[in-house]
């Protein structure tokens, strides 16, 4: 019958200064605070390169986008960055509508994102 309560945020360290934050389920005004906390935690732990995996994110709204923009700014303030990975067609449409597809770098896989961030880190 479907599940309305399957929201989760999964974090894992990807490399020295990078971490992956994977969003599972619907990210809205109710669930976004959990994602904010997870992203801030990673930043506070010294992971200034954030990789936000959206492959299993079924839904995002403007509150979710606001949190992602906020984390992007905080990461850049620390000299890091934030990249989005594998947004679904629906979320890609949201990013286009809000013109944020020009703001966020977007990759197909975590590995691709890590490669980009490593290049950025070593100034390549």
């Amino acid at each position, binding site marked *: 019958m479907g599940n*309305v309560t399957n929201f989760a945020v999964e974090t894992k360290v990807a490399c020295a200064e990078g971490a992956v934050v994977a969003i599972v389920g619907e990210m*809205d*005004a*109710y669930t976004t605070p959990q994602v904010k906390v997870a992203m801030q935690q990673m930043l506070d732990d010294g992971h200034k390169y954030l990789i936000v995996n959206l492959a299993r994110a079924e839904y995002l*709204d*403007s*509150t979710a986008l*606001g949190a992602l923009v906020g984390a992007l700014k905080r990461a850049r303030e620390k000299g890091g960055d934030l990249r989005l990975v594998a947004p679904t067609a629906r979320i890609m449409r949201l990013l286009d*509508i*809000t013109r944020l597809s020009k703001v966020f770098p977007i990759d197909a896989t975590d590995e691709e994102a890590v490669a980009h961030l490593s290049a950025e880190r070593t100034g390549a």
Partner: protein
Amino acid sequence: MKIEDQTKCLMLSLPNDPQYGVLLRKFVSWVAMLEQFDIKAIEDIEWAVDEAFTNALQHGVPTVDGQEVITVCIYPLQDSIEITVHDSGNGFDPEAIKCRQEEDARDCEFDLAECGRGLDLIAASMDDLQYDRVPDGTRVRMVKHRRTEAEGT
């Protein structure tokens, strides 16, 4: 938009609590599904209703008994679906906000604001949008037309 003519309406009244946003979205998207809207239109309707609900949560003022209720009415019409979201707040001037947003857009090509995308998303998702001050609060009315075959996918 002549809500007064319409007798057939599905009404939902929810406590001022963000956890119910997902229920509201699902419910509205199911009504739209029953009404044969296509998947893209259903996604649009979900966004618009969600943003209107979030605004009602954030900007609606609790009534005297401390329990604010957000009321959503869905009117399935012949060629469209009309949805109103009603809160008990003091409303605002959408024109003023529109101007501010246009200025922002001029100012920075890449908008890094952490809020303020809700009304844009509603406007982009729906065909018609109107804010009204009603005696007991603010009401947003949103209309989505059913696309005809000719207009393609």
